[in-house]
């Protein structure tokens, strides 16, 4: 396993996206090939990598899932402090970013 502690926030986030996609895709394969041992091993391996990465992300940057929200070492409700997925990389906050009415 990669050393998750050494990854930056964006590297860890990319890693979560990758291992999560591996899980998404193998789930569908297993739904129609439930006895395929190679696919089962692949699922177990990537599911573990994903869970570990989600926990590490929650600990350092805030939770991406409610099940890891409990891991965030903070007394505040981190769930709403981190950006939402549709905000993209170019904006740092939500609705008030233009702070201005109709032009």
């Amino acid at each position: 396993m990669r050393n998750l502690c050494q990854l930056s926030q964006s590297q860890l986030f990319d890693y979560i996206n990758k291992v999560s996609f591996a899980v998404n895709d193998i789930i569908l394969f297993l739904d129609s090939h439930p006895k395929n041992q190679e696919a089962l091993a692949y699922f177990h391996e990537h599911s573990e990598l994903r869970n570990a990465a989600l926990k590490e992300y929650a600990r350092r940057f805030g939770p991406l899932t409610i099940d890891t929200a409990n891991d965030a070492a903070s007394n505040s409700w981190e769930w709403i402090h981190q950006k939402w997925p549709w905000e993209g990389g170019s904006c740092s906050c939500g609705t008030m970013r233009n702070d201005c009415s109709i032009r």
Partner: protein
Amino acid sequence: MWNYEKRLQYPINITQPNAQIAQVIMSQYGGPDGEMGASMRYLSQRFAMPNRQAMGMLTDIGTEELAHLEMVATIVTQLTRNLSMDEIKKYGFDKYYIDHTVGIWPQAAGGVPFNACEFQSKGDPITDLFEDMAAEQKARTTYDNILRLVKDPEVADPIRFLRAREIVHFQRFGETLRILQEQLDSQNFYAFNPSFDAPTTCPPCAK
């Protein structure tokens, strides 16, 4: 039961707004072959499936379609960020803008609102699985059409991801149909509704 995960299935970061492209991509949110129809189709049909394999496939693909719905909405949101009134008028976005500003609302590119008649849930698994396979290909064609119009790589990249998933889903629904047919009388696949007239069973739920 569902839990939300605070990330997109595939990352999207669009920096150049484009109201014209937003208007056509919107069709994959609420259009005839869009992700809203896809998710509602599979998540509704699964209740009448005759075996756990098909129930699982429809649940898991239907769930992934919800993530695709979120991706399409994200693309439209980011394409309509910080538009000037001149751009809204110039690119014909004014008709959408007048009713929804730049909010997300399910409609086809031509303005037709989302309607449950864009999918079926027939209560007949053979019928429904054939519809599902056709639906995946229709969505793939729509993404092909979008890719011919879109030149911005920040937009085309996630659209290519969505297109690729349609092909995987077509394959998986084909397998699901084959598995179901293997449990039926090979001389009489299409003459009756296997869920209603002659329920099938399969491991591990065999009697």
